[in-house]
């Protein structure tokens, strides 16, 4: 059972999000509580998953039974376990706040709102777990699309902010995909573990360097690194209060940088074949950031 936990953690919010329009069509008032129950279940599962990782080591989950070079792999290591636990805890707090306080989360926008929030949470857990660059891209897009729609929920001024966010964010993901394309063309691998082995020998290659630069710029736009952060203030201040902690906790911020770091970690001479994630100082710092950001945002929202 415990080896299926990564898939289950992802499937719970996804399945609930899928059922949400139907449930909302039948009975609108159930949506909020149902979303809350789903996220709470996800939190319980993610804590169980973290427990199994701590006691039994990392879990590698291959979808469809196909193993990595061919299949899609999800990697639940200790970083991912901590991130998922933090993420689902944050989602519980956000949904509790949303159902209790209301605002944009009630009325006729309730059904799309909760669907999008659950999709966002599912996408975030996908980004955290994905073991190869391309699936990180796919889940990045899932998260981004939900985030654009979520920022636009209040209407009015938020629409323009959401459009600016969409413009910059889509450019960012396009650059990221381009970087992935360069990497694949140069190394023939997408799995992060495979890349960590192959990239060190290819560092002289211009294609690999170009891929690294494109991926860095793309992710820098997504995490709003200093000169590329133009979209962030408007999007976060005009978006719905109850959901912005989730946007802020955007674990792509951490996971992307960690995925990036694990491929670029091999750049550092002393650290060959050893992804940066596995170094002990890396974990608490990265995983505490979304939590701290989310909590402070909750505090400022109330």
């Amino acid at each position: 059972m415990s080896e299926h936990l990564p898939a289950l953690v992802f499937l719970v919010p996804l399945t609930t999000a899928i059922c949400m329009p139907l449930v909302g069509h039948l009975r609108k008032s159930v949506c909020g509580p149902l979303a809350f129950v789903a996220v709470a279940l996800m939190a319980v599962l993610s804590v169980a998953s973290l427990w199994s990782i701590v006691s039994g080591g990392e879990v590698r989950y291959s979808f469809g039974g196909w193993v990595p070079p061919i299949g899609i792999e999800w990697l639940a290591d200790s970083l991912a376990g901590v991130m998922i636990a933090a993420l689902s805890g944050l989602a519980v707090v956000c949904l509790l706040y949303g159902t209790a306080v209301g605002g944009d989360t009630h009325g006729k926008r309730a059904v799309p709102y909760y669907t999008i929030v659950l999709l966002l949470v599912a996408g975030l857990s996908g980004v955290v777990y994905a073991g190869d660059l391309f699936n990180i891209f796919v889940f990045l897009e899932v998260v981004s699309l939900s985030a654009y729609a979520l920022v636009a929920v209040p209407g009015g001024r938020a629409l323009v902010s959401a459009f600016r966010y969409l413009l910059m964010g889509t450019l960012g993901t396009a650059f990221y995909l381009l970087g992935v394309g360069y990497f694949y063309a140069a190394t023939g691998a997408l799995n992060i573990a495979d890349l960590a082995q192959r990239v060190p020998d290819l560092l002289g290659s211009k294609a690999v360097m170009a891929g690294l630069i494109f991926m860095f710029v793309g992710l820098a736009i997504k995490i709003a690194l200093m000169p590329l952060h133009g979209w962030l203030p408007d999007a976060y201040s005009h978006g719905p209060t109850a959901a912005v902690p989730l946007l802020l906790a955007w674990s792509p911020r951490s996971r992307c940088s960690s995925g990036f770091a694990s491929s670029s970690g091999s750049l550092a001479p002393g650290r060959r074949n050893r992804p940066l994630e596995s170094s002990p100082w890396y974990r608490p710092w990265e995983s505490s950031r979304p939590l701290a950001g989310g909590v402070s945002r909750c505090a400022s929202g109330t």
Partner: protein
Amino acid sequence: MSEFFGAALTRPNLVAFVVLLLWGLYIALAHHNLVKKLIGLYLVQTSVIFFLVTTGAKNGATVPVILEGAAPVTADAYVNPLPQVLTLTAVVVQIATLGVSLGLVSRIYRRFGSLDEDRILDKLG
């Protein structure tokens, strides 16, 4: 410098990719009309997809399905299916982005009565 351009001319597909990418970036950032910005964005995404396709292409190769009684299997005779799968997924993602962004733009138009960035900013005050 000259050998650089010479090398570029032997790969016209990559030149086309660069031109499409830069053109799209220019449209997305320089135009003031929101729909034109979207067109530029679409061009950028299309150029990336074009890059994936053009790196995955192989002359004289066929579908990666081994037919019964086929002669000894050589990797040269078959196309690598992975770039095409990536392309398909990227195309779907692109369509989804386009749908969301067009929906957003139509909401903006209904709210502000204009698609021009400057006029919208004027109305926001």
